[in-house]
């Protein structure tokens, strides 16, 4: 059975293909579509893929991912294919690219970091230190986070 028949086509929204197998739930969390949202989301996990062996796929209705959301997606799934769907057709393909700096994506958790002071008007800024495996460091205090930490500390 082809994967595309597992879920129906969507009218408008975003299809994220080629997510590493088993990571779709993390992507949902990363994109903050798991809470306080009414968009229907179809999730396909561990389907066969010529390119990847196994992969996950997400179809999110009535939401077109913006650049900030693509930056978040890139952390988990830097090789994902993102298609914007309008009226059942692919209107645009968007490129996922890991940014060198993540602003207000996840917070630094170091208790003595200047960012812990809620009254200071400063963004949470993490700088990419390693792509594989993912490692970021707080721009201010240098505290490191791996992918699991980032997901736990999402803003």
């Amino acid at each position, binding site marked *: 059975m082809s994967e595309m028949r597992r879920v129906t086509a969507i009218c408008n929204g975003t299809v994220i293909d080629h997510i590493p197998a088993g990571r779709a739930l993390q992507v949902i969390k990363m994109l903050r579509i798991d809470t306080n949202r009414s968009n229907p989301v179809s999730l396909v996990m561990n389907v066969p893929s010529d390119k990847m062996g196994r992969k996950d796929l997400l179809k999110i209705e009535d939401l077109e991912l913006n650049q900030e959301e693509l930056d978040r997606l890139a952390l988990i799934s830097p090789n994902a294919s993102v298609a914007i769907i309008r009226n059942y057709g692919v209107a645009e393909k968007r490129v996922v690219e890991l940014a060198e700096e993540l602003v207000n994506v996840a917070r630094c958790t*170091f208790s*003595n*970091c*200047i*960012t*812990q*002071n809620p*009254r*200071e*008007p*400063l963004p949470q800024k993490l700088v990419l230190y390693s792509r594989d495996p993912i490692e970021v460091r*707080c*721009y*201010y*205090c*240098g*505290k*490191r986070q791996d992918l699991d930490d980032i997901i736990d500390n999402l803003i």
Partner: protein
Amino acid sequence: MSDVVTMDDLSNEEILSILDDSERLVAVARGDVHLPLLEGKVLANMFYENSTRTRMSFESAMKRLGGSVLNFSSIGTSVAKGETLFDTMQMVEGYADIAVIRHPQQGAAQYSADAINIPILNAGDGAGNHPTQTMLDLFTIREAHGTLEGLNVVLVGDLRYGRTVHSLSHALTRFGAELTLVSPKTLMMPDEIVNDLRSTGATISESTDLIAAIPDADVIYMTRIQKERFPDEDEYAKVAGIYMLDAKDMGGAKEGMIVMHPLPRVSELHPSLDSTVNARYFQQAFNGVPTRMALLCRSLGVKIPKEVKK
């Protein structure tokens, strides 16, 4: 921008050039030569944490070069009324040409540097960086050994919380020094820092035995176990006074080996050590003046003459 927040803000060539500048400024730092390079300039000394040497040596450096100093302490000022660091720094930008900041929270110096347009020199942020201390430490080591390359430097004491040793170890390995890290198990250098240092190809060994490290050392860098960094007094009591050096311990040292300490000391350096040829910590404290002079001039874009004469 001419901020110095971490040692990464300076290339190896810049470090060596600042050390050369500092060397030429020693006579000015001693008050033997009048050289008002910073006349009319104002330094804001922003100290949110206690300091004796760093604050005074910055003040001395600025005044010896003809500049003036605004001293700030967070006690009894608008900070006590809840003013943010951001707001305070906006005010400083209007009052001074350059600012030095010490703050208990890590990242405060970078934040300040981003917030305003005058140069910022980091004088210590939490357990993070203390690059001007590192510069004076490098100056002291080079003064004694003529080079920074290929030396065996033994760092002793609180390697976990001590910002001085974090900055210094990074800088020393950039110049090919070999490090021996001596600390109690609870105060070892954080793994992430050791891994970073090793990833640059540096040779690093770790031990709990100070006496065994003496014969091979070119430099022994002692640090105080910092009571204020311990959340629990019992934990502090377990390690306080664990490493002490006295004059007798110098018997097995190599010729030319120096003992350094960022000061203040508690019990780790016995007064009997003060009169040995190895003791270099008071000279090290003085060296804060010429190196900070050189850093102030660099950040303010003021060139130091190639020859400084009486």
